[in-house]
């Protein structure tokens, strides 16, 4: 079956991977401080390395592709407290280590930057970051042609708005609401040791503040993912937590915001869960944890989420009873 393996050639752990808008390219980041961009070659049905370059002075934690209308732009963040914006230089040859040029180095964070993501393109070229200093920052490139000029539009303390929280090793994460017809942009932020996630959006004075809170986990949240809406009348947000559970939250419209309902707490991993991500229609949720497995979850007809498939590097063996 169409399961293909490729050598990633990273020298260390891979921390994040991201597809571009069309799924034709991949970018990976690793503890070896490098970013690698891959391109799918239709003729050979294989992924080929476009370029690989040393992007940071520390492990690179996350990468994100911008919408193609802004060009081939990648953002990366690292333990070195910086967020860097890279743009492809078409004229540089492939695998020259120079194909992606550093456009901007955003160093406002006083802690390692834990998560980044570009906003849906209808909000412009915006980038949200969360760092270990407990601050959500939203940057915007006001001139799309000039990627070196990013201005910080928002700086919001996650735990206590307005204050910069010095929580060491804050486990923060974020995900934009991908739904475009929204009146205002929204971000869900995993709030570290508060054991919850909060939905941030601008208040009537255009100041970002937390609104709804997603309760239900007993420990820190490692990852959040906002499901593509696909015309549903509600939103789905998935969370991965240190308490071994994958949570699914349902946001339904109500007059002054959203009512939050925790519709699933899935303990199948049995160990800490580190990543969740939805597929394009928000119909399959995938999660991975310390058990080294990727689990695929799907909702049955009665709305119950179940683990439908497990991908493991090593095959699971049965637990035989003596």
């Amino acid at each position, binding site marked *: *079956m169409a399961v293909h393996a490729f050598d990633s050639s990273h020298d260390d752990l891979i921390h994040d991977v991201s597809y571009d808008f069309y799924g034709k390219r991949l970018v*990976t980041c690793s503890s070896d401080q490098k970013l690698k961009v891959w391109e799918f070659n239709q003729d050979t049905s294989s992924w080929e390395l476009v370029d690989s370059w040393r992007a940071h002075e520390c492990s690179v934690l996350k990468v994100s592709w911008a919408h193609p209308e802004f060009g081939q732009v990648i953002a990366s963040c690292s333990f070195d407290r910086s967020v860097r914006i890279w743009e492809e230089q078409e004229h540089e040859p492939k695998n020259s280590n120079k194909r992606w040029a550093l456009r901007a180095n955003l160093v406002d964070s006083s802690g390692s930057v834990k998560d980044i993501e570009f906003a849906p393109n209808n909000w412009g070229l915006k980038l949200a970051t969360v760092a270990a200093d407990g601050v959500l920052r939203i940057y915007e490139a006001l001139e799309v042609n000039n990627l070196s000029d990013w201005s910080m539009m928002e700086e919001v303390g996650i735990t206590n708005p307005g204050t910069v929280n010095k929580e*060491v090793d804050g486990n923060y994460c974020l995900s934009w609401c991908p739904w475009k017809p929204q009146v205002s942009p929204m971000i869900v932020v995993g709030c570290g040791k508060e054991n919850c996630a909060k939905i941030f959006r601008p208040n009537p004075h255009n100041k970002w503040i937390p609104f709804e809170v997603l309760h239900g986990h007993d420990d820190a949240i490692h990852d959040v993912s906002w499901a593509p809406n696909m015309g549903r009348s509600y939103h789905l947000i998935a969370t991965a937590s240190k308490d071994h559970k994958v949570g699914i939250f349902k946001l339904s419209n109500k007059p002054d915001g959203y009512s939050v309902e925790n519709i699933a707490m899935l303990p199948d991993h049995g160990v800490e869960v580190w990543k969740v991500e939805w597929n394009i229609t928000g*119909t399959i949720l995938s999660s991975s944890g310390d058990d080294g497995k*990727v689990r695929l979850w799907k909702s049955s007809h009665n709305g119950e989420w179940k683990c*439908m498939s497990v991908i493991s590097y090593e095959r699971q063996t049965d637990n*035989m009873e*003596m």
Partner: protein
Amino acid sequence: MSGLPRSYDIIWSPHEGTNQFIIGSNSDLRLYELVPPKRLDGKTIVRRVTAYTDSSSMKDTAPMKCLAWSPDPNYQSLVAISSQAPSTGKIVLVNLHEGEAEEAPSNDFTTSPDISSVYQPQPYITLNLRNSKCNALSFSPEEPRLLAAGLEKLRNDYCLLIWDVEQPRTGSISGRSDRSIHNELGNIGYDGYPSFPLEPSKSVYETSRFVPTACHVRNDEIKPTYQYGLNESVNSCSWFPSNRRLVAGMSLKNLRIYDLRKDNYVQCTNTKSVHGVNVDPFNENRVASFEESYIHLWDLRKFSESISFIFHTKCIPTDSKPVRISFSKSRSGILASLDKDSSHLTLYDIQESSFKLRHSSTINRKSSLESFDPHTNLTDGFAAGISVGGNSTPIIEKSSFIGTSVTIPNKTDEEFDTPVLWKSRKSRRCSKNILSFSWITTFSTPTSHRLISVNKDGVYNFVTLEEAPQFCWSPVGNMVVFYPKGFRTFDIDEIHGTVEESNLKRSDPHNMKIQGHTNIGGIGHKHHVSLDLRHDHDHESGNRTPRPGDINNSKDAHSFGRQLKELKGIMLNQQHRSSEGLLTSISSDSDHGLSPPLKLIREDISVVMRKRAKRGYSMLCTANEELVKDSPKLKSLWNWIAQAELLSDGKATIGNVDFSFQGVYSIWTASVLSSKKQSPISTPKTSSPRSTPEKADQGPDDNEIPIVNTSKLSQRKLALAMCGWDFGKKELENEIRELEIANNYEKAAGIALFHGNTERAITALNNSKVERLELISATLASYAFNDHSHSNQKNTLLRKMCNKLSNELREPYLRVIFSYIASGNWLYVLQQQEELALLDRVGIALRFLDDDELSTYLYDTTNKVKADGDIEGIILTGLTSDGVTLFEKYVDNTGDVQTASLAMSFCVPRKFKDDRVADWIENYRLLLDKWEMFRSRALFDIARGKHMGSSTSAAENIPPQVYVRCNFCSQSIAHNLCIPGKNRRVTLPASYHLTPGGLLPKQKTTCCPVCFKSLPRCSICLLNLGTPTDQLREVIAKNGSTNDIKGSGFDLWFTWCQSCRHGGHALHMSQWFEKHKICPVSECPCECPREI
């Protein structure tokens, strides 16, 4: 742990390729070995190899205090034990492996508690501890002959003793007095310090090996080679991987680093964190130790400044204190810790927050030995260079004076400041509290952490923690999953599936399962242990080389990486046999209810929608019906829309009310209003108050099939028509015949019955020539004869039987037939038989139920389908706002935004507007864009435009985007502003677009149409823009018109660089830039192709 009545310690062999471990208890040591399964599906067993009992310790019940396993490659199981008996403090070295042959491998997992039956190896070295207790034991990984022991405080004596355990056998070491050692480094059994043998000569070991006991010497004969720490006690100690250094926690107040070439410590820091000191084998500057409830991390480059990284273990409840910590030997910065009275291990993942040392070369023992160059280090007799990592890393020199250190300023000094605790993770809880643990060096990889623990019952347990794999979804539904050395894509577009999947299942020798329980020291607890261990193929050939901490080797050990290297970029379809440890999916039979991931993904709506779109799922109902034939409900939806579309051009009217695309329920309820001469709300098009006589009221037609008495006959008829049930007798007969030809006699009979034609139903069943159906026809016939004699006794029996049959048969039409025979009441039938297609049920209801029953039935059913999101229910709601509500539920349930968009586009926005529908359409269009199916999206837009009616055109929704302005008059030089803009980089057309067929007077295209000033010149041909190029002129000359120019019509357009704003004819420009990178205008340095 020493205070407990029984205490256990566990260590895994430091030797590569050995799957052995030792559990030490108060009085004995047991060596176990994991035996990999012979067959692929075999079990891995744990077999006890040998045991050792310290008879002297047994006597005084002194618990075994410390254990250390020699990493000497010549001795697979040389272990140092210190007994804790206060009066007889000693360290015993035992070679446990000699007893191996004595015990046959056992397949039951119990180990005999009968120690006497086991070979009892003799200690061959005993080291005297001068009546002190031993707190720490450690073999140097660099020189396995060096054993360090840390003792309790001794008055006027040294407490950190380092022995050369080969000393008695090599025999060349003179028993010199303790205090003279430090000055005579060069003479201790070597030919002089700088050239001392890094690996002890093999032959020495070979001989001694055969006669181990011969080497046994009396206690007092072996003297420590080095000793440090006068009048101090040693709490813990640990060797650095290289450079003969060790770090020790001393006297509960400081950490010191000793260099065997120095008389005293070379670095010191004051701290209470002196326990469990541990060196990261990947980063010699990183040392960890713990005190009460803190684990401290030290950076030796800032050691004296006490730059320490502290993390609280406060996440663990109660007053948990760490009792043991240990760095992983397979990845940098992984620190495992065990808290007191806890049943799980904690793994800390430490990352440098800033400058990161290159650790690639540090761990390979051989290379670190090679890089050890005594000459360079000894050139400076005063200060020792501490070289860490690669040669590019900074060297910090420390003065040898006590307590002071000088840090050579270095520009990266500020950089490598703070380690960050990135993750702290807990293993699964064990059933009992853990006493000790050890890294399983042979099976740990950078992404897979394996440990073995022992609990207070002496039962061992495997602990596994994996790194969470990274993965990502592509827009088309492919998934990529990353593993240590590679990634894997699940590609839904390829369909040669099953073969590989089944092969993957088979070829997976890597994963073995260890299963067993132990019974140690007479404690009868049976305990299950299980572990996924990857086993290397090379095991049998003795070739396996996963060396702890050796990156290169561990790559080999786990052939995943190696295989991938070989396979680089090759599809695995052909190669799966050779690649073990593949990313496999769990087969559905091995795990309950799980399906292979690809199957699951393929069945997901995201993939289904894309597949349908590729096949041309569109707004053409008949084509769609064919496309979705695997889904009966969608098929019936498109069937209904096709019907509705047929009726939409004026046929679906009652009076002046247009019911096109209205559902049965809307028609039925609306008819109430229309009888009062009002128009239904949802159809605002009616304007005429004139009421025309309804066709249906005109006298009976011969062809007409009777309908139950009703006040709203026309509505019923229209509704039946909307269901496709508007048969006359002839059409019905044709329909039934067709069904009979298609061998669908059950349905034929059903359809006949549903139109009140019982005889025809009987005939249809008889025509089947199937015995079973003929029998049924007999039953039906018997019913038909008794039709109107309900009181008949026989009939009651018949009804009972039929009722039973109606519940037992599988074919819905037959069930309905029997149900009807049993009850004679269609409403009852409808309520009972919900398996029947909704269309049929509604058809029956419309034909047979009286007005009140029908209203109730339709109302209930409509509500039900709306609540369920049953897409078939569209026949009830129609493509109305009710239908949108139904579709909303359907989309909520399935995510099938595609069908919703396509279906609702028939009526939205022409008949009504709805934000939800607009949202679906936007979502669907975005999906098509993401899938790069721009053509499908365009076709969808066109189809939508057609259904929007004439008032709104799709093109009008997109205003002109770009126009070219005259330099002089600032007017657009376009001659027709309505021309939709193209891509912003391409210019607008000149004259030939404006004069289709030459109707308009030919205007001069080389000048502004408003001010008639000349347009700029092409920078290649220097003619005014608008002048056709040479090639174009030839074409025009040939065809007489520019209209025939296809594709290459762009040649006439003019284009320019967004940056330098030089430009010209598109044709000339593209020709120029085929060969050049720089703007054609002289002196203009602009690299136009780069400027987008």
